[in-house]
């Protein structure tokens, strides 16, 4: 069954999520991926929104991470302090992030391209990204992959990945045993080497070669001997995405 790259990303992201775990989500693809997980393998995935929605039954895609759909039939409509405190206390297993730039250690830039004082492109800033990147146990980055986005050096480090490498999150004062877990793009799925904390290729999407991924990465990506192919979205996943989760094609396109 044919699918577009966004549908594949949604499917791949949903499969990272586990039943009975919690996930801190932003608008767009993260919500779609989380709802997809809830309707397939993870019915008890607890979805948390930064404005205070905890465990809603999301009736339709929220436009804002604070809108009323983020606490529709929720177990709790709390406050930002409450959910951020939950994250700081270790209750949030996964967090979704996006970025304009990422480096080999999974550090992210969502603030500016060019100099901060005189930016070529001004981006929205951290929002909750720095908080999620600091406090969730594992973060999942969803973004497009090309050499302008996968860079050797960020123009601005908005959200911490593994910073300068092994031990440097802890040295900076960030919570122990946290950090980026997966990076999912239109080309493949990446993870992080447990020793060096540098980005490693986990799988290439169907029809994408390892060389395609490497050519679209501006830093040295670790390539294992054997790189599997990302599982395709199932027919049921595609049906859910198209008919139930995003019938107006606001996110999926």
């Amino acid at each position: 069954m044919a699918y577009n790259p966004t549908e594949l990303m949604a499917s791949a992201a949903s499969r990272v999520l586990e039943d009975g775990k919690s996930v801190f989500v932003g608008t767009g693809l993260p919500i779609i991926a989380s709802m997809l997980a809830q309707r397939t393998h993870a019915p008890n995935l607890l979805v948390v929104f930064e404005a205070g929605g905890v465990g809603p039954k999301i009736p339709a895609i929220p436009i804002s991470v604070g809108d009323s759909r983020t606490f529709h039939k929720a177990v709790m409509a709390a406050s930002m302090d409450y959910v951020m405190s939950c994250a700081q206390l270790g209750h949030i297993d996964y967090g979704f992030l996006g970025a304009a730039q990422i480096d080999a250690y999974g550090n992210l830039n969502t603030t500016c391209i060019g100099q901060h004082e005189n930016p070529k492109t001004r981006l929205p800033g951290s929002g909750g990204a720095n908080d999620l990147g600091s406090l969730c146990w594992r973060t999942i980055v969803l973004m497009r992959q090309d050499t302008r986005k996968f860079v050797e050096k960020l123009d601005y480090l908005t959200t911490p990945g593994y910073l300068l490498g092994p031990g440097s999150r802890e040295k900076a004062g960030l919570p122990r045993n946290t950090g980026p877990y997966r990076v999912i793009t239109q080309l493949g799925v990446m993870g992080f080497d447990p020793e060096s904390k540098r980005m490693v290729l986990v799988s290439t999407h169907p029809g994408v070669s390892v060389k395609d991924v490497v050519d679209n990465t501006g830093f040295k990506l670790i390539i294992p001997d054997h790189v599997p192919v990302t599982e395709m979205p199932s027919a049921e996943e595609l049906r859910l995405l198209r008919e139930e989760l995003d019938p107006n094609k606001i996110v999926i396109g």
Partner: protein
Amino acid sequence: MDPDDARDWMATKKSRMLTDKLMPLEEAVSKFTYDGGYLAMGGFGHIRVSMAGIYEMIRQRRRNLVIAGKTAVHDVDVLIASSVVDRVECAYAFGHELRGLSPAGRRAVEGGKVKVVAELSNAAFQWRFKAASMGLPWLPARIMMGTDTFRYSSSKVVEDPYTGKPICLIPACYPDFAFIHVHRCDKYGNCQIDGTVIEDKELAMAAKRLIITTEEIVSEDEIRASPDRTVIPFYMVDAVCEVPYGCHPGNMPLLYYSDEEHMAEWLALSRTEDGVKQYLDKYVYPVEDFAEYVALVGGEKKMGYLRRLERLEEPLSAPWAKR
């Protein structure tokens, strides 16, 4: 601000006297906001933001404000476009969440017309207000450390005397004036909010001047019948203004959804300075008050549609979605 100075402010400039604070929004804005001040808006993104307060400040041609960009979206965008705001403390701004980036906000920053004077995160902003609300100079937090976001913030990192680990101290923020839009309140300013309160409980305590806009004025007895629903007590409040639909085009949870048709119009027009002028000349400058604005944006018919949308009785259309 030193917490001792904040205490002096609260003791002398806020009153524990139960007094009628009802006034027209025009009066509240002229009385409690001023050029060059630090502004913070209640709500979050397009949710429960007092757009009525925003439009009134534009009409009164306030200038040189600093705004708390605490996931500030349409509010900061029109305030920048109308030259009211020229500095932003930025957690999230210059974007419209799922709708994409803000043409007007980006243009102003990239052209140097608006300065980003600090960077921080959403939780950091929340905790800045929370520190203020607790009468503390700062709150500790385990965020921002190791990043440029920290370097551009006003926080400090110290060694925690208990654990020996580094910890971030986020300074209190006491905005000069803030607007919070609520579901209902009495004439004294005892307010109820339905759904998530986001960071408004803390912001209400932190703000040196607090203007409440409300969908509805209710009796004191109604408030006192369920005191556990009160989110903001009267002694934090300086003015109470009744403004139904006062957060349009945003979402007032459980009452009306955001007006994506209006947002699409703004996003299209704000691509150029001419378009911005067109928008302001149509919806803001010539308008007497918010009721007239509501009529202009579609009146009862549009509001009925947004109410049905909120109740999930109509499918959402997203005219800004190009795909």
